[in-house]
């Protein structure tokens, strides 16, 4: 029994020190730099496959003809807009509770990418809506909730840049992110809770997806591709942010000007 308790204590200590080590700025800077080319390669590879699959190999839709091919950018972008927000909410909680610096950095580096994907989802949805629904835009629950998500992203970015001290700014931003997280389930369930012009979920439901397998595979490949894009780009932004915040740290000197380290 006592051995078990000691083991448990050691385990917690070991895990904690591992997390601290991994999330330490120099370590993250080095690892992310090493991993970035790999994610870039997977992004490009899956993108090429997804584009060929979606634009050429996938059959035309029985109702929407070739216009349905917009799905291969619209849906992955919409998924990313919510996925990135959830990553940011997780980072916000970690940053507030455990005061891990890296969480703040990943959060703020993700915001512009999330905003971009939200804008892509809204714009491509609008372009798709015109020929199919007969309108560019309607104020139904799904579209409105997604527009609110865009404003949240822009608000987060504006708030961060409005506060002089980065650490105080990060704290405010974390709270805003957590307040806004309520919007994510609203976006997802809006098409089920209310009568909307936007149709219900195709892939992310408990039943089997109501999309033909030949059409589904390129969609999932594009989703993987966009995730790798996000990691690649976010790493780059996070490394910039790290250099900015830690410009006086010894590891930065050692890294950028190896001869001047001492």
């Amino acid at each position: 029994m006592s051995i078990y308790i000691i083991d448990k204590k050691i385990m917690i200590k070991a895990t904690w020190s591992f997390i601290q080590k991994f999330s330490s700025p120099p370590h993250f800077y080095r690892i992310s730099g090493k991993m970035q080319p790999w994610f870039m390669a997977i992004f490009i590879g899956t993108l090429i496959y997804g584009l060929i699959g979606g634009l050429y190999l996938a059959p035309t839709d029985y109702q929407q003809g070739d216009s349905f091919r917009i799905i291969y950018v619209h849906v992955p972008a919409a998924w990313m807009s919510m996925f990135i927000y959830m990553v940011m909410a997780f980072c916000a909680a970690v940053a507030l509770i455990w005061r891990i610096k890296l969480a703040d950095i990943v959060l703020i580096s993700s915001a512009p990418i999330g905003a971009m994907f939200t804008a892509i989802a809204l714009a491509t949805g609008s372009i798709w809506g015109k020929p199919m629904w007969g309108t560019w835009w309607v104020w139904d629950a799904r579209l409105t909730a997604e527009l609110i998500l865009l404003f949240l992203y822009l608000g987060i970015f504006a708030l961060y840049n409005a506060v002089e001290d980065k650490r105080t700014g990060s704290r405010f931003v974390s709270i805003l992110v957590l307040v806004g997280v309520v919007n994510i389930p609203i976006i997802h369930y809006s098409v089920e809770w209310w009568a909307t012009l936007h149709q219900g979920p195709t892939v992310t439901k408990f039943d089997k997806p109501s999309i033909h397998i030949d059409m589904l595979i390129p969609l999932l490949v594009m989703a993987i591709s966009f995730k790798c894009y996000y990691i690649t780009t976010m790493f780059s932004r996070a490394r910039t942010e790290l250099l900015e915040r830690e410009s006086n740290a010894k590891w930065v000197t050692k890294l950028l000007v190896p001869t001047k380290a001492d």
Partner: protein
Amino acid sequence: MSEFLHMGGYASFVWSSYALSFILMFGMMFLSFSQHKKKQKIIQGRIIRAAQQKAEKKREEENE
């Protein structure tokens, strides 16, 4: 090939969606990469300048 580009009459909608998405995505990616490179250079310069100033000060002190 022209049939592929024609997209069953929805060419303008399909191609504009894809163009818009990838212009934004690659724009964001290259902006992020170039910002990182720029920041590296700036901080590198700052460190070297600080070291030079320090060395100069040291030399002046030695000369006095």
